[in-house]
């Protein structure tokens, strides 16, 4: 399986990243792309920008571990993850997850699994910039519930793993 993980400050071209994964091959039948985009509001309040802090080294390692985990769960042909850090303004992409498989079920499931894990386990922290200042975004219980779907299927896994 072709796996690519990129953490970068710069904006990226989602179409070009997706094309990289399928170019010149005819075994891929399904590609699922998730783009997480900076909205102009956060919980109702207009925002000027997001700033993403991350833990260099750990972030790459965590994401790569989860890509490998996805590849053991589903028959994937390729995965690409790009996650930005630094300042991001509304309308810009924050994260891109692309999964390729022969069939759609695997591509969909792996993309959801990876997004749920990025939201709850990858060491990134979002700060929103509004007219009233900068505040850290709270983690949501909904994201924890979404991530728990995947561990519930593998009883015995260490909770902090």
């Amino acid at each position, binding site marked *: 399986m072709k796996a690519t993980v990129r953490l970068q400050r710069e904006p990226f071209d989602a179409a070009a990243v997706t094309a990289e994964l399928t170019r010149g091959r005819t075994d891929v039948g399904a590609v699922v792309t998730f783009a*997480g985009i900076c909205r102009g509001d956060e919980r109702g309040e207009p925002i000027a920008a997001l700033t*993403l*802090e*991350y*833990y260099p*080294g*750990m*972030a790459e*390692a*965590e994401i790569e571990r989860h890509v490998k985990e996805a590849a053991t769960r589903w028959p994937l042909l390729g995965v690409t993850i790009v*996650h930005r850090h630094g300042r991001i303004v509304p309308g810009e992409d*924050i*994260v891109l997850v692309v999964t390729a498989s022969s069939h759609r079920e695997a591509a969909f499931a792996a993309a959801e699994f990876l*997004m749920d894990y*990025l*939201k*709850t*386990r*990858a*060491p*990134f*922290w*979002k*700060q929103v910039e509004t007219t009233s200042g900068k505040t*850290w*975004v*709270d*983690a949501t219980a909904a994201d924890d519930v979404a991530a728990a779907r995947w561990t519930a299927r593998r009883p015995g896994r260490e*909770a*902090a*793993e």
Partner: protein
Amino acid sequence: MTTRLRYFAWVRERVGKPEEVIEAPAGVRTVGELMAWLASRGEEYAHAFENPNVIRAAIDQRHVRPDASIKEAGEIAFFPPMTGG
């Protein structure tokens, strides 16, 4: 034993620095005990660690629970729950 500590997001802001090297007393054996000891080191630490239940930790860049031993740790990080993606 000296250990490198790293702080992220609001833990970093409250402590007032991104990292430091500390020497924890011999009785401090777990991540949870280390947080309690850090909280006693001054006002900024007390503020950062006032609610240890919401703080996550990693040893050598792997998530760990508060009962994890810090004995072999090269680098210990403290941070709020993650909000990436």
